C-alpha cells in the first residue's frame, strides 16, 4: 500500500558493480537483460544479477514495512470509531494492511532472505518505511483523508508495479491492488458523508485534516526526477515504470477534481489549471520537511518504530512457546 519512491531509500552498501566479472557471469547477465527487454518475468529461482536481487529485497521489504507501520496511525482510532460500521471498516482496512505486509514479506523471502532478518533491519533503523506514517492521526477525519489521499497516492505508485519484472512481487502487487480500491473509496466516502450530511463542526474537522495531510501526501511520490539518481536502473529493470514527477502530477490532477466534489479547499494557493500543459500547476513543495522526516526527525518516527520494536520484543516469549510446542509434538510424532 504505502510505497515510496525507491530513490529516497539509502543505497545498499557495496552494491557498486564489481569491476571484474567472469565471462560466464557476463553471458548470464546479457541473457538476463535480454529477458527484461522482452518483457519476460523473472521467477524466484532464476539467475539474476546481485544488484537486481538486492534492489528488490530492499524495495519489497520496505514496502512491507510500510504496510505494517501503517497499521499504527489508523489503529490509533479503532477504539474511538464513531459508529459500529466505521469501526468494522477500519478494522477490516487495518487487517488488509497487515495482510499486504505479509504478502510482501513472503515475496521478499523468495529472494533468499528471512522474515526475521527483514524485521531486524526495520527495528534497527537500517531499513526504511514510507515516511507518511511518521505523521500523527489527530482527528477522526484523518481516517478519511488517509484513505482518500494516502491510499490514493499509494495506488498510483503501486499499479505500475503489477507489471514488475520480478514475478512474485508482481503477483503480490496484483493481489494488493485488488484489495486496495476499497481503502481509498471508504476514506473518500467517510469525508463526503461528513461534508454533505454532517454538522458544521464535522465539516471544519474535514477541512482541517486536509490542510494537514495534503503536502505530506504529495511528498509520497519522492523527490523530483532531477534529484532521483537511482530511478534509472530501476526503470531499466522494470521495477519502477513511471517517474516520480509524472506520478505526482497524475495524482494532483485527479485529486483536485475530487476535492471540488468534496467541497474542501486544498491548502495550495498556487494550484491552478494550466491550459497549455493540460495539467494543474502547483506550488513549491517544502523538501526540507520531507528530508527531515525521512531522516528520522518527523513528528512520530520514534513512536512508530518504538511501537513495532515493543510488539516484537513483548511477543518473543509467544513465538518461542509456539516453536517449543511444535518441536515437542514433531518429536512425539516421529517417535510414534
Amino acid at each position, binding site marked *: 500500500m504505502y510505497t515510496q519512491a525507491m530513490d529516497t531509500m539509502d543505497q545498499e552498501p557495496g552494491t557498486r558493480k564489481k569491476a571484474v566479472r567472469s565471462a560466464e557471469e557476463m553471458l548470464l547477465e546479457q541473457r538476463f537483460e535480454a529477458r527484461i527487454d522482452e518483457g519476460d518475468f523473472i521467477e524466484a529461482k532464476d539467475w539474476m544479477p546481485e544488484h537486481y536481487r538486492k534492489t528488490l529485497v530492499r524495495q519489497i521489504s520496505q514496502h512491507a514495512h510500510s504496510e505494517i507501520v501503517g497499521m499504527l496511525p489508523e489503529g490509533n482510532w479503532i477504539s474511538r470509531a464513531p459508529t459500529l460500521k466505521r469501526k468494522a471498516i477500519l478494522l477490516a482496512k487495518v487487517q488488509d494492511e497487515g495482510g499486504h505486509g505479509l504478502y510482501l514479506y513472503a515475496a521478499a*523471502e523468495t529472494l533468499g532472505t528471512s522474515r526475521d532478518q527483514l524485521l531486524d533491519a526495520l527495528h534497527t533503523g537500517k531499513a526504511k518505511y514510507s515516511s507518511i506514517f511518521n505523521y500523527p492521526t489527530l482527528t477522526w477525519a484523518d481516517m478519511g483523508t488517509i484513505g482518500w489521499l494516502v491510499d490514493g497516492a499509494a495506488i498510483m505508485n503501486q499499479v505500475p508495479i503489477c507489471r514488475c519484472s520480478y514475478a512474485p512481487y508482481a503477483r503480490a502487487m496484483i493481489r494488493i491492488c485488488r484489495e486496495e480500491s476499497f481503502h481509498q473509496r471508504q476514506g473518500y466516502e467517510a469525508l463526503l458523508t461528513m461534508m454533505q450530511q454532517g454538522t458544521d463542526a464535522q465539516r471544519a474537522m474535514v477541512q482541517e485534516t486536509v490542510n494537514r495531510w495534503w503536502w505530506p501526501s504529495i511528498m509520497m511520490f519522492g523527490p523530483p526526477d532531477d534529484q532521483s539518481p537511482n530511478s534509472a536502473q530501476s526503470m531499466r529493470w522494470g521495477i519502477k515504470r513511471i517517474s516520480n514527477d509524472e506520478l505526482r502530477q497524475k495524482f494532483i490532477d485527479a485529486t483536485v477534481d475530487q476535492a471540488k466534489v468534496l467541497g474542501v479547499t486544498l491548502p495550495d494557493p498556487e494550484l491552478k489549471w494550466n491550459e497549455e500543459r493540460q495539467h494543474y500547476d502547483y506550488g513549491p513543495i517544502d523538501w526540507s520537511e520531507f528530508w527531515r522526516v525521512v531522516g528520522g526527525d518527523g513528528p512520530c518516527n520514534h513512536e512508530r518504530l518504538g511501537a513495532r520494536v515493543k510488539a516484537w520484543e513483548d511477543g518473543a516469549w509467544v513465538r*518461542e512457546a509456539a516453536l517449543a510446542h511444535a518441536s515437542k509434538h514433531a518429536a512425539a510424532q516421529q517417535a510414534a
Partner: protein
Amino acid sequence: MTTQNEWPLWEVFVRTKAGLDHKHCGSLHAADPKMAIQLARDVYTRRQEGSSLWVVRSDQIVASDPGDKDMYFDPMEDKVYRHPTFYALPESVNHM
C-alpha cells in the same frame, strides 16, 4: 529461507470453488500445521476466496531446476499436435 528460531515458512494453495484446482497464492509463517491452516484461512480467504486450503512447508517443495528449463519444457514446443487448436475442422463441427 528461515533462521533457527523462526517459525517455518509455509506455501498456501487455495481452491476457490469445487471443480477448480488449488492455486498457489502466497506464503506465511506458522509454528505448526494447525496454525498454518488457520492463518492461511485468516490471511488468504478474507474475501470468500476459498472452499479448500492446502498448506505445505516451503522446504518440502521440490521444484524443477530453471537451468533445466530447456531440457524439461522445450520438447513440448514442437509437439503442437497435442493441442486441439492444431486441428482445423469445418465450421459445422468445430465445436468439438
